[in-house]
């Protein structure tokens, strides 16, 4: 552990850390553009100059390039170091457009911050500015090359970190250009990170273009709901409209990045057709009326078919808060079935995984990055957990061997484009016929990644034998939690319940009843925030809040419980309000379309109306630890007891 002195402060850091990181650890921020924790050093921007006063290296040095060593004495306030940093800003501002007032990066721009911080206010350079032609990079990312400060972060992320090959750096000297050979959408499923990683406004999020300033955003720590990995995010909203999603650092899960699926597929939150008002047979009603009707219908079902013909159906997308109350509804209605999953396969897979995946065996994404041998079994990473593919790539870049176990059917499912997506994996794989062909014994940190399927027992046996850690891809953001609850309450999937001819009617809580089942069932009520087929079929619709409109919890694929916080008020985006209703003639203290309620709150309400007197508390009993979960930490890895594993 090298010990050094920075600005008279003694610092001790782990071996291999740079002087820049050492300074950061004691709260001294040395300006930097090209250095990035995930990408490491480049030495390109030269803005992190410090003076090495004493020790093994002397003079002005770039703190990002210099490994911290014993005996170093560093000054960040040395006059020449400051002159250099100031000069770098002047150099970068020679060609940077003064378009901050109309630049979407304004307010969250590193170049803007350092320009202000360094006091560069007067332009000495009187020549012309260099200009570039921008490219169309697809529907999500805006390209504004004139703002570029050539820090090489984008290309280092895109090609080196993420393995993309269609975006890069061209030209030389002052003609450096970051882009594609020709206009066209960026191909990498991780392209959206360019927006986050660019220290200025070359790449901005088109979904938020010209909509708000950084300081206007409603933001809160959140968790991505689009797959089971639980990547950490910061959704940014304004005027009740979700504008963009930013990756939030969590070294145990997603690191610094986010996949494009997680970043760019959130338009449903703002969708005009989203249910926002309680409905009875399509008629807008007040909550009171809707809930009364629900109770009546449930009773009618009981009279008509018998209470046991009713199923309470949740899903793997439902927050742990709501999911953990479903059994109360089941009890109070006397429903015959309680289902946490619709699909039998998903239920089966989640059940097996949670039953086997103990705390020790469970591989986090950080474990995957650190692995030296990774086996892929029956998984389609880019489809079911893109960020895990990025984690595997990091291991592969460090020299890990990646083996793909082929099965007779041709390895993996076809993806949406009808292409076998292993062709696009950002790492090289060795194809093997079976798990036993993989030399686990030679590896220090082996990991098996399993997508779910009939090989579970074989995978588990092999993992147990070899000491390999295990990562499984599940269906939804709370599959793990749903599976634990299903086990606790002896639930079966809706598909199985229907097959047994037990079910005639359902109450669906953010579940998607498959279209082929809908004609066979009476959908008594649907609690949802999306305009699904199930919502359309339901007699009663109770609008719930989306994950960005409430606090909640998901348990990810490794059994890590993570809290997400309310980002924005539910309600019609101001942009979507009907202008013919201006000025408003109906006076109400409510936000237009703001009647949505968190699913768990509605469930509590229904349960009370069904006659329960008890004070219902969230996360009672064995879930107590989840009550005070900190949304900004690494979450809570469930213990074996919490997992129900003895």
């Amino acid at each position, binding site marked *: 552990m090298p010990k050094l002195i920075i600005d008279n402060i003694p610092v001790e850091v782990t071996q291999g850390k740079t002087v820049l990181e050492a300074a950061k650890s004691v709260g001294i921020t040395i300006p930097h553009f090209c250095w990035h924790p995930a990408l490491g050093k480049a030495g390109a921007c030269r*803005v992190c100059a410090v003076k090495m006063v004493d020790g093994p290296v002397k003079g*002005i040095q770039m703190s990002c390039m210099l490994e911290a060593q014993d005996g170093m004495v560093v000054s960040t306030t040395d006059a020449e170091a400051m002159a*250099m940093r100031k000069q*770098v800003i002047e150099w970068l501002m020679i060609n940077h457009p003064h378009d901050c007032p109309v630049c979407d990066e304004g307010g969250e721009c590193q170049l803007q911050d350092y320009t202000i911080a360094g006091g560069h206010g007067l332009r000495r350079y009187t020549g012309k500015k260099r200009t570039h032609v921008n490219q169309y990079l697809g529907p999500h990312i805006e390209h504004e090359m004139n703002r570029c400060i050539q820090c090489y972060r984008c290309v280092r992320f895109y090609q080196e970190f993420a393995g993309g090959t269609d975006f890069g*750096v061209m030209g030389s*000297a002052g003609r450096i250009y970051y882009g594609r050979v020709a206009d066209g959408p960026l191909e990498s499923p991780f392209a959206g990170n360019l927006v986050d990683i660019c220290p200025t406004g070359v790449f901005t999020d088109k979904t938020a273009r010209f909509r708000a300033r950084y300081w206007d955003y409603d933001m809160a720590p959140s968790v991505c709901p689009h797959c089971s990995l639980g990547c950490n995010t910061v959704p940014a909203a304004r005027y009740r409209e979700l504008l963009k999603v930013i990756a939030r650092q969590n070294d145990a899960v997603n690191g610094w990045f986010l996949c494009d699926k997680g970043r760019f597929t959130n338009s449903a939150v703002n969708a005009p057709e989203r249910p926002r008002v309680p409905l009875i047979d399509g008629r807008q009603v007040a909550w009171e009326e809707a809930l009364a009707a629900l109770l009546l219908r449930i009773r009618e079902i009981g009279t008509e078919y018998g209470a046991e013909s009713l199923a309470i159906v949740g899903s793997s997308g439902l927050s742990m808060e709501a999911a953990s109350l479903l059994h109360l509804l089941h009890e109070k209605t006397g429903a015959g079935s309680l289902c946490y999953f619709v699909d039998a396969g998903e239920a089966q897979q989640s059940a097996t995984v949670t039953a086997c995946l103990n705390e020790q065996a469970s591989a986090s994404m950080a474990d995957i990055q650190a692995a030296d041998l990774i086996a892929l079994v029956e998984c389609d990473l880019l489809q079911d957990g893109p960020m895990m593919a990025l984690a595997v790539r990091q291991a592969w870049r460090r020299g890990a061997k990646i083996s793909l176990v082929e099965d007779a059917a041709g390895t993996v499912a076809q993806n949406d484009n009808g292409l076998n997506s292993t062709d696009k994996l950002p790492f090289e794989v060795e194809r093997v016929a079976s798990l036993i062909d993989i030399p686990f014994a030679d590896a220090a940190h082996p990991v098996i990644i399993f997508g779910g399927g009939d090989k579970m027992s074989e995978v588990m046996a092999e993992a147990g034998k070899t000491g390999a850690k295990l990562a499984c891809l599940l269906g939804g953001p709370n599959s793990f939690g749903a599976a634990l609850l299903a086990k606790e309450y002896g639930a079966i999937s809706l598909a199985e319940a229907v097959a047994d001819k037990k079910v005639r009617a359902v109450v669906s809580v953010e579940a998607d009843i498959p279209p082929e089942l809908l004609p066979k069932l009476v959908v008594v009520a649907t609690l949802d925030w999306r305009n699904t087929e199930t919502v359309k079929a339901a007699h009663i619709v109770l609008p719930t809040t989306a994950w960005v409109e409430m606090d909640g919890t998901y348990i990810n694929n490794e059994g890590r419980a993570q809290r997400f916080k309310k980002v924005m008020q539910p309600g019609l985006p101001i942009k979507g309000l009907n202008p013919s209703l201006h000025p408003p003639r109906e006076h109400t203290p409510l936000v237009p379309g703001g009647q949505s309620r968190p699913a768990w709150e509605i469930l509590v309400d229904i349960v009370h109306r069904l006659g329960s007197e008890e004070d219902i508390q969230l996360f009672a009993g064995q879930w107590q630890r989840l009550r005070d979960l900190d949304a900004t930490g690494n979450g809570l890895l469930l213990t074996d007891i919490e997992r129900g594993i003895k």
Partner: protein
Amino acid sequence: MKLVPMRRMGTRCNVIMEQPLFQHNKPGRCVTFAEYRDEGGFAALQKALKELSPKQVEQAVSDSGLRGRGGAGFPTGRKWSFVPRDLPGPRWLICNCDEMEPGTYKDRVLLEANPYSLLEGIVLASYAIGVRHAFIFIRRGYETATANLQRGITECLAAGLLGENILGSGFSCTIDVHSSAGRYICGEETALMNALEGKRANPRAKPPFPAVKGLWGGPTVVNNAESLANVPGIISKGPAWFKALARTPEAAGMKLFCISGHVVNRSCFELPLGMELGEIIEGPCGGMRPGSRFKACLPGGASTPYFSAEHWQVPMDFDPVAKAGSRLGTGGIVIFDQDTCLVAATLNLVRFYARESCGWCTPCREGLPYVVHVLETIEAGKGSREHIAILQDHIKLLNYAFCALAPGAMGPVQGLLNNFMDELEEHIDKQRCPFKARE
């Protein structure tokens, strides 16, 4: 190829000089393989492979005092000694023939007349370092030299002087010629390795140094063509002989000086290191051209601070030139007469570097065009005192660029400020270039 009669070699140079590199040259054509061999070529290779261990070859080069001829002047033998011999995997040798420093053309002259000394030198160096695969990285535009090298490689392979089991010694070595496509930065040794690997030719961070982690991550030596071409002479005639070729006791060997600018004989001369600047100009160069008086010169290529008339007696060797405030560099001496505007000359030089920057780091990519802009403004008669301060800032701060290109580019600017400040100030005070006729 122009050969300079010996009598022109300067007043103090009465003895016939030995010219290890030019000795085989034939007027107007390239020496043939047979001629080179018959005149004693490849004797060093035979001797080394039969009688000397690799260590002894390295030692001889160290003892000779040979310093790198590419510009930095690092002792060649010492460079070889840094290569770890115990790492697994191949080691590499690269001959740097990406000669693109303005004012420098020695490698072209050398190789258009004789590719064999270099090829022999490469095999000797490979033997010393334990390299089985060497590369010659040659610039675009040197098509004749490239053809000569390729022909020479074929001939050497046929004669068993290259390839498997050279001269029955058990030592094997191949040489590949990599012909580049034109970019000055490829001559920087770490950028060169990226270029050779087929990557963008940005310099790499040091450490790790190429000797430990270079081409494809293996230990790598990068030597200038002229340095390597001198190795056969050192091996066949001995380090003491080589060292004594120089004019001064501190210097070692002969050096190819390429002359351009306002002198009578603009040519490449093989001269003893340590000859005085004035001696070279008045001797082999035949003095200034009619009507011209010496005003200044770049003593070692485009990146070296100007010498003025007061440097007339500086011995042209690495340390004395450095002591006088400049660098021997590549030995490309560009000579300017009294009618040359050194602001304009400096502008030309910095423009070159601004254009040839790889674009990796901010100081070089943005700082050099800034300096160009400032010099343009001064040359256009719109300069102010503040511009001098900006130039001074850049001289200091461009030292903190990623590689040596930007600091090198500021060499002439520094020379301008150090030796010709009055000329610069005249531009500013008169608000016009004094060398341009009044409009």
